């Protein structure tokens, strides 16, 4: 048995998520697929498991070209996928979850299913109480249930998408043992990850995907620095930085603990000075957003103290943060920032300090014209937000930042922007810092982090992993740190 992915192309509008990907994996292989966020791993796996249809290319299993139009098609030919969040119906029992996806007659044969669950799970070395509710299982146990179900449905190729997120160390060891056992039984296991350590520990071959293309393929072991370089591209060396005179502290975190249900930051001490730019590095979901949202007042710390300009904001609402000059700009421009169906003028009216009941639309339109000029937004005052391109949406959001901002919190400020827009965004942001604001931004772009930050905080697995002065680090070291390893 061999799985062959042949020249897969998948475009989303102008974005080439997969641009001619070919991978061949043999029977009994534990194959790692590495890549940074947005490299195209997930798209490829979704094509394999029938969630997306490829624009062109083919998936071949045992020499047979597969037609994968739905996840049901995929599992029928033996390809099963385990999602990052296991697709388990929490209010259902273990047994009901087990039989849910099975094809067959209308009538549920629960007693037969119970025996089957018992048989397959014992083979795999798991044990379940069939009557337990799925919501009472740990994430690790839900994964085990999913694996059992997929094996029972006849999966021969199993795809694991970041399976170690949210499970305990013991469960990770157990999961890895299971994956090895599956491979020994001749299954093909695809292990999608961005954690170098895990791929090193587990896989016997690896493919690195970058910007929708396969850039590297080799049997393991491979030197980690080589993998880092392949994942992030040419290792970037920052220019010599002009030293910046920093002012007094603006943001102060004193042993702040905060939890958003997925990541938990524990007893974090941190200071941001006036005029300082702090970059937050790390893979998506490692805790950067948790920190930003806590600083913005959208998450209340469970312990510790948070203050801006000496004002204690620990238990102050989001609007209280706004009032002292905190401004938060999330990554989803149209989801958390702009309002669809509302024009450029209307957005500027919404954020203006004018509080009169009646809106002076003539004046507002003239003001919008000035902003459009100043920020070179390609659009008219009457253009609705969704009609602007990503770069222009970001320019509008910049224009909506109040003059007297003290702490600016940004997520991926230049994601998806062309070079010119990105440079413009940073020119504007750096002006704010000259005015004495503190800027904290999360980014997945090493070059951006190294170019604009004074300090870089690296997150890994839901906590702060390392803090580096930008002057004393480089892209290679950051690549290691982001993958959860110290450079040796």
């Amino acid at each position, binding site marked *: 048995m061999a799985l062959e992915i042949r020249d897969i192309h998948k475009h989303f*509008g102008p974005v080439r998520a997969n641009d001619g990907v070919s991978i061949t994996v043999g029977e009994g292989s534990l194959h790692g697929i590495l890549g940074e966020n947005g490299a195209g791993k997930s798209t490829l796996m979704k094509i394999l498991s029938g969630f997306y249809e490829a624009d062109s290319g083919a998936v071949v299993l045992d020499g047979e070209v597969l037609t994968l139009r739905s996840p049901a098609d995929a599992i029928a030919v033996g390809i099963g996928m385990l999602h990052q969040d296991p697709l388990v119906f929490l209010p259902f029992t273990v047994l009901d979850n087990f039989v849910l996806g099975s094809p067959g007659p209308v009538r549920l044969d629960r007693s037969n299913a119970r025996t089957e669950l018992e048989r397959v799970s014992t083979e795999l070395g798991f044990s379940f109480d069939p009557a337990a509710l799925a919501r009472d299982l740990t994430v690790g146990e839900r994964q085990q249930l999913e694996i059992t179900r997929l094996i029972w449905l006849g999966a021969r190729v199993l795809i694991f998408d970041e399976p170690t997120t949210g499970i305990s160390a013991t469960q990770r060891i157990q999961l890895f043992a299971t994956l090895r056992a599956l491979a020994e039984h001749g299954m093909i296991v695809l292990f999608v990850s961005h954690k170098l350590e895990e791929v090193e520990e587990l896989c016997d071959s690896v493919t690195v995907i970058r910007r929708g293309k396969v850039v590297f393929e080799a049997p393991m072991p491979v030197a980690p620095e080589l993998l880092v370089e392949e994942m992030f591209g040419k290792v970037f060396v920052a220019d010599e930085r002009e030293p910046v005179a920093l002012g007094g502290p603006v943001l102060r975190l004193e042993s702040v603990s905060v939890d958003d249900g997925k990541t938990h930051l524990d007893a974090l001490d941190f200071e941001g000075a006036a005029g300082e730019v702090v970059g937050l590095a790390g893979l998506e979901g490692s805790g950067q957003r948790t920190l930003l949202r806590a600083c913005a007042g959208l998450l209340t710390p469970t312990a510790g103290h948070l203050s801006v300009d000496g004002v204690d904001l620990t238990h102050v609402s*989001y*609007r209280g943060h*706004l009032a002292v000059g905190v401004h*938060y700009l*999330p990554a989803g421009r149209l*989801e*958390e*920032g*702009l*309002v*669809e*169906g*509302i024009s450029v003028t*209307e957005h500027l*009216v*919404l*954020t203006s300090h*004018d*509080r*009169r*009941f*009646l*809106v002076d*639309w003539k004046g507002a339109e003239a003001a919008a014209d000035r902003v459009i000029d100043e920020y070179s937004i390609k659009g008219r005052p009457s253009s609705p937000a969704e009609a602007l391109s990503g770069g222009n949406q970001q320019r509008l959001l910049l224009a*909506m930042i109040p003059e007297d901002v003290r702490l600016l919190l940004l997520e991926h400020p230049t994601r998806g922007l062309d070079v010119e827009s990105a440079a413009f965004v940073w020119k504007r942001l750096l002006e704010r810092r000259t005015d004495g604001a503190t800027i904290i931004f999360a980014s997945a772009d090493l070059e951006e982090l190294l170019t604009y930050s004074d300090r870089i905080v690296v997150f890994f697995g839901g906590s702060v992993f390392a803090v580096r002065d930008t002057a004393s680090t480089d892209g290679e070291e950051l690549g290691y740190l982001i993958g959860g390893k110290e450079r040796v």
Partner: protein
Amino acid sequence: MRSAAPTLVALVAALAVGIVLLVLVGAPPFEALWLLVEGSFGSASKISATLLAWSPLLLASAGLVVTFAAGLWNIGVEGQIVIGAVAATWVARSLPGPGWVVILAAIVAGAVGGLLWALLAGVLKTHGGVHEIFGGLGLDFVAAGLVIYLVLGPWQRTGVASTSGTDIFREDAWMPTLEMLGTGWPVIPVLLGLASVVVVWLLLRGTRFGLRLKAVGRNPKSAALIGIPTNRYLLGAFAIGGALAGLAGTVQVTAFQHKLVPSVSGGYGFLGILVVLLAAFGAVWIAPIALFFVAISVGSTQLDLRLGLDSAFGGVLQGFIVLFVMVGGAWSARRASVERAARGEP
């Protein structure tokens, strides 16, 4: 500018279905349609009756434009009309003094009653996490039950309790009409109705409140991040919508029924939802669309009298119009998005 062609096509399609239905039940289709027109606009008194029915529909629809702007499905509008009517009835029955004082007080009471009933659904949503559709629907039933209790219990007719309603109000507590052309014209209700539409239009078009409400309705997440206190705005929308619905209830009891009846809402709340859907959630087209709808409702009583057809035919026709307009709208939206995709736009 949105093209009117799909709407026209939908109207013609609804009429065609209506004609087919009439043929199927053995009625002369064109005579029946003519009776609809004649029944609503055929004489001075019929026009007056149509205008009297138009007013509460205008009020309820104007209120619904506000709640829809905030992204709310105010299904509780029926209950808000009913509670407005109950509050107005209470004033008309118990307040002594000159008639004009009673009428003014009834108007205020009706608006406040509807407002409070709507706020109940609002607080359930903002503080209890109950979706406004479920909260509103529940409160509709509570309001309907309350009216029946009042009509059969504490406010029963002298002599015998009957679902035909309470005693008629004393005559100087009736909303006055303008006598002209041999019939009484409901000037005050019509002015209230038209004023509500204009005020709502201005509110949404020209004020900071209206703009913020629109932002909350279209994207509560972004609105909250911009710094708008979203819950306060949602409750504000409920309050305005409820007050206008309560006024509709006041008109129903003081200008039309002159007593409280179990079916006091006249279904104008749900009909208002259809009107606002057809008006594409804006205030501009409400007046003509509402007039068209009540004309069908009022005119269809003639079908019963003259052709022995059930007057529910009017409702069937209204339903088909809305259905076809919605389908047409969805179809043209889909076509537009396919065209955009073909041009390579997002």
